[in-house]
């Protein structure tokens, strides 16, 4: 097994991250210390693989996360010797290492100043700009981070990752409609992303259940949420997250009773009628039950779900069953 996978480092569970970090020295030993891009070397040793550098990047992230700074530095040295100090992505990585090793806020301020200096020379240095925003957010200056991010999106409006971060920042501030707007921008850029559809549904649900929401917009949010979750399960078979949301919301709408909804003016979503809701609820319940049953018996080909998600689905199903038993 090649230790640092191509999977993004932040998707690893702590145990996996630890395993990767423990194999880091072996990986560093097994791969060449310097890679030159000269044609002679390419002839002699074969061409360098672009995955190698992705692996190094992930390795740095994982090692920093587990606190293995020596391995992170060793990996960083190789990246620097290959791409040089002035590469934008390398600059961001160097900043990341400094951030991770900073002991107090003073050192972080110093890192922030370095970022500002790099950006004053070249303010389209997107990796460093993103690091600066992340650092500002980490320091608790959320509004500054948000305005910097909006500025970044001004000149780079097709950056779906940045839109997604903006949505997360707005959500942390409780600005639901802005968060929904930003995640809708992500969907414009990645219309087939089933997890983003589910995320949008979750945001709509959060907005609907937030305190102080008018009844009209409450129904509006829930109606849209149900469409988003439906789209996510349409894009992805057996999507636990999508079915969970679908069940949650259809149950809620059914419990609310069929209040008369004003007919929208065409471009508004309307809550589906009770019949449709019941069928959606049944479908979601059946699918969730199947997923939980097959996954908990460790059936072959059903091992992709995380245990916490399965546990949550089981709880939701149990809530449903308890009134019948009584």
């Amino acid at each position, binding site marked *: 097994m090649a230790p640092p996978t*191509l*999977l*993004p*480092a*932040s*998707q690893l569970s*702590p145990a996996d*991250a*630890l395993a990767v970090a423990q194999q880091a020295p072996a990986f560093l030993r097994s791969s060449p210390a310097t890679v030159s891009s000269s044609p002679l070397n390419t002839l002699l040793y074969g061409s360098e693989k672009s*995955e190698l550098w992705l692996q190094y990047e992930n390795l740095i*992230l994982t090692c*920093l*996360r*587990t*606190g293995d700074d020596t391995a992170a530095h060793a990996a960083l040295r190789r990246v620097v010797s290959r791409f040089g100090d002035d590469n934008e992505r390398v600059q*961001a990585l160097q900043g*990341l290492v400094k*951030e*991770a090793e*900073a002991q107090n806020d003073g050192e972080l301020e110093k890192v922030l100043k370095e970022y500002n200096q790099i950006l004053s020379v070249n303010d389209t240095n997107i*990796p460093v700009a*993103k*690091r600066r*925003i*992340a650092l500002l*957010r*980490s320091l608790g200056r959320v509004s500054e981070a948000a305005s910097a991010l909006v500025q970044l999106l001004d000149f780079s409006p097709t950056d*779906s*990752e*940045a839109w*997604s*971060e903006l949505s*997360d920042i707005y959500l942390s501030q409780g600005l639901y409609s802005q968060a929904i707007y930003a995640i809708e921008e*992500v969907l414009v850029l*990645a219309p*087939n*992303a*089933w*997890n*983003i559809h589910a*995320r949008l549904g979750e945001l709509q649900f959060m907005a609907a259940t937030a305190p102080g929401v008018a009844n009209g917009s409450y129904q509006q949010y829930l109606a849209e949420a149900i469409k988003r979750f439906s789209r996510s399960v*349409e*894009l*992805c*078979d*057996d*999507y*636990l997250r999508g079915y969970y949301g679908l069940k949650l919301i259809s149950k809620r709408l059914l419990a609310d009773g069929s209040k008369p909804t004003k007919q929208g003016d065409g471009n508004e979503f309307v809550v589906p009628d009770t019949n449709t809701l019941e069928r959606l609820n049944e479908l979601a319940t059946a699918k969730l039950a199947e*997923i939980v049953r097959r996954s908990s018996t460790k059936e072959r*080909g*059903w*091992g*992709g*779900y995380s245990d916490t998600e399965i546990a949550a689905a089981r709880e939701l199903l149990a809530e449903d069953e308890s009134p019948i038993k009584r």
Partner: protein
Amino acid sequence: MTLLSKTITTFGSLFLAHACYSAREHAALQSLRAATSASLTSSPTAASSLPIDIVIETIVSTFIILLGLVLGTRPLRPLEWRVWAGKIEREGEQGFTDNSGVVDKDYMGNPFAVLESRPNFVDIRKQRRQFAKWVQEGSGKQGQ
């Protein structure tokens, strides 16, 4: 699975090599016979074709090799988007292995998961704290 396909391919290759050898031997024999018969009698012999058993052996061995190669291919990926996406969610990396059970190199899970994990905006100090906490909890559990 791989052993089976390799065995079949090897056998097919052996048969094919044997067929080639037979054809060559046959041609050599024919030319020798033609030379001797030409010296004895001057009657021209009809241009002889390959015997039917060599032809059949060649064709059959080609199909055996094809069968072996087809059996050795990795499982095909789903074509439909929702089936493919469902496979990622349902099976995880177990669904994307080759015949010997090694996870494909280009497997990267849900390609849109980066939109939620956002590696370029990672808050590394928070991750460090969380990891340290996880380690502490783990060692606490082990100590009990």
